């Protein structure tokens, strides 16, 4: 649900005892009654009001609300008002315009990979690491690959809450029947592309749909990009998008990665032409053996009751890689931020990070290492089975037009769709993509 494009706006506001007291105080003042003994305690309890914008709907939204409620129940906490907007472009355009119009919320969620493109517009303020330290959050609490994304040109612009990689789900019943589970009930390791293909074919043999692998790509540029970039980087490919230059990449590796994916969606190992919804429902109903997708589908599969486990996409060309992005907290630019509110926002983030075990339940890997190292997390299944991904994360190459829900993956889908549909030659499709991106690079960043 989270990654669908359904627009949703919802306001959630907590009316607690404190707010009620303040209300009563207000009525009292209006009535001309001098505040008496309660005055002092009332003013000290008159918490800051924090506005918080994010794009977490569905189960993620529920989890976030729970975390915020917990935070607000702590001593001296601020009151948080959430505004939830539709995932992707609708959210980002509104956030940018609100910030440009001087009506920015006190705190917002962004995808880490979008921050480098967004920051030069002056729309973000930096976090105060010292202040975070007061609340017990330090640099060494984050994995290196994630911290790299949190700093942009030396400034700490976003605090990652999680990473949500692209992984492999597998149906344990089907895998068992196909004889591809080890004695611990985990998917057998695969070392080479041939191994992996054999495994997929074994799964196909045992799967009711006849497809070992489900992968929804039709009309979904984002998912096509996740799959491509996972294998492209696994094969050792790199990509750079220098402004004013041209896309830097390895053509041979790109074509190999495309050919490899085509060999998986050949109608034998995997489905040939599923869209996202079809692939999800195929796996959710126990039709297919395995499913390529983001960790956030955990909730829906659990609800469907399909027996499944998860693993990183196996590294059959080299060390595994996990294409990912992170939900992270940002401080939208304010011309004269109120120090007390800023302080409260830092406290809020620290609280949510430390309690992000709840967040892990929805599939995301918490960015805050102490939570991941906690035995409670290690007991979570299947979450702990792909937690190693934090050492193998790859994010979108930085540019002003990349990151989750940006035009970059839309253009990838636009130009590559016909390649996956086997209507266009891989090189031709790839060159069209490169051409599109070079057009964008030729123009200066608008921010």
């Amino acid at each position: 649900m989270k990654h669908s494009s359904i627009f949703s706006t919802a306001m959630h506001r907590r009316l607690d005892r404190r707010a009620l007291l303040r209300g009563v105080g207000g009525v009292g003042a209006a009535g001309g009654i001098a505040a008496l003994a309660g005055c002092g305690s009332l003013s000290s309890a008159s918490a800051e009001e924090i506005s918080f914008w994010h794009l977490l709907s569905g189960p993620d939204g529920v989890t976030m609300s729970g975390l915020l409620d917990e935070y607000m129940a702590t001593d001296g906490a601020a009151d948080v008002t959430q505004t939830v907007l539709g995932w992707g472009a609708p959210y980002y355009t509104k956030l940018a315009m609100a910030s440009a119009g001087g009506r920015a919320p006190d705190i917002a969620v962004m995808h880490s990979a979008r921050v480098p493109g967004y920051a030069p517009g002056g729309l973000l303020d930096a976090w105060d690491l010292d202040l975070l330290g007061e609340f017990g959050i330090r640099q060494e609490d984050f994995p290196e690959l994630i911290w790299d994304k949190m700093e942009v040109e030396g400034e700490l612009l976003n605090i990652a809450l999680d990473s949500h990689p692209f992984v492999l789900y597998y149906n344990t019943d089907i895998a068992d029947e196909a004889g591809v589970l080890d004695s611990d009930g985990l998917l057998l390791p695969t070392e080479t592309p041939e191994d992996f293909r054999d495994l997929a074919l074994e799964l196909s043999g045992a799967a009711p749909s006849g497809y070992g692998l489900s992968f929804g790509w039709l009309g979904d540029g984002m998912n096509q990009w996740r799959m491509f970039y996972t294998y492209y980087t696994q094969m050792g490919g790199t990509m750079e998008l220098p402004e004013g230059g041209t896309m830097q990449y390895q053509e041979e590796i790109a074509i190999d990665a495309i050919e490899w994916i085509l060999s998986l969606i050949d109608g034998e190992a995997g489905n040939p032409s599923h869209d996202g919804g079809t692939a999800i429902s195929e796996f959710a109903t126990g039709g297919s053996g395995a499913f390529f997708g983001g960790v956030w589908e955990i909730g829906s599969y659990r609800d469907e009751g399909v027996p499944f486990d998860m693993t990183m996409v196996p590294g059959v060309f080299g060390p595994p890689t996990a294409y990912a992005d992170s939900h992270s907290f940002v401080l939208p630019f304010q011309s004269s931020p109120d120090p007390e509110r800023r302080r409260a926002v830092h406290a809020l983030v620290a609280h949510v990070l430390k309690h992000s075990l709840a967040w892990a339940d929805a599939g995301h890997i918490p960015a805050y290492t102490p939570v991941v190292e906690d035995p409670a997390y290690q007991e979570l299944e299947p979450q702990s089975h792909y937690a190693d991904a934090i050492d193998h994360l790859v994010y979108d190459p930085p540019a002003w037009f990349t990151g989750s829900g940006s035009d970059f993956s839309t253009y990838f889908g636009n130009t590559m769709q016909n390649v996956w549909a086997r209507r266009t030659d891989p090189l031709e499709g790839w060159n069209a993509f490169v051409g599109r991106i070079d057009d964008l690079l030729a123009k200066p960043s608008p921010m």
Partner: protein
Amino acid sequence: MTTTDGLATPSGTARPAAGVSSELRRRRRRADNLRGWLYCLPFLAAFVLFLIWPTIYGFWMSLTGTSLAGTKTGFVGLENYAEAFSDPYVWSSLLNTVWFTVLSAVPLVIVALVLAVLVNIGLPGQWFWRLSFFMPFLLASTVASQFWVWMYNPQLGLINTVLGWFGITGPAWLQDPNLAMISVVVMTVWWTVGFNFLLYLTALQNIPDHLYEAASLDGAGRWRRLISITLPQLAPTTVLVLVLQMLASLKVFDQIYQMTAGGPGGDTRPILLYVYEVGFTGYRLGYASAISYIFFFLIIIVSIGYMVISSRRSVKS
């Protein structure tokens, strides 16, 4: 003769009092004018605030490099326009918009006419037909789009399931470059034909019965009456429907944004979606404004075309 009579026939007997009454009339008219403007004021304020001013401001923005973040607001002259004219995506999306307009306007006029004539023949249960043809028009674009996204779904959709009963493997309607635009057009016809249908039905019901009676007496059959009376009588409505339809089709955005997001490969991306991409997800408001103005110019030409045609018609009649 009373004064009222005099007012009714100004050239008649009221002449002696002309000086006084015309002065009075002028004063009254001025008071009326003032009152008229006062009544219009709320509308005028909204009109200036939400249409005139944005139009002027948008034009100014098109001459700057303004970003969504409100930065880079410097004047760049006609640079944005020059870029737009050499931007292949402007042309391809403009072509898509025109193609969509051609593909959709024709069936939206013809189907509406056929439906209206059929209903007007006097089929039993007229209210039912009227309701079912008009009802889709009342749906929000999101709802109508979702209906069709699911109907078009290659694996689970209604259309391919039905085709499957006959052993036919249906295509991926919205993802096949050759079919995507047609599929969107079919959905659009279903969704919006009700409005034109209603215009036609009203026009049909306004054709005087005596024309048909006279024709019947002269021995004209059903077909003859349709060709010689109904269609000519509907001509003004057809011009209206066609122009309204063209303007509506040129503005296509909602259903395409929701059904294909402009894909596959940009084959269904209309100009307004490109404006949205450039301006909002691409942060380039200035450039997006310039493209909008080029498109605005195109719409003005279509509107002037309509005014010329309709004024000629009124002169003729």
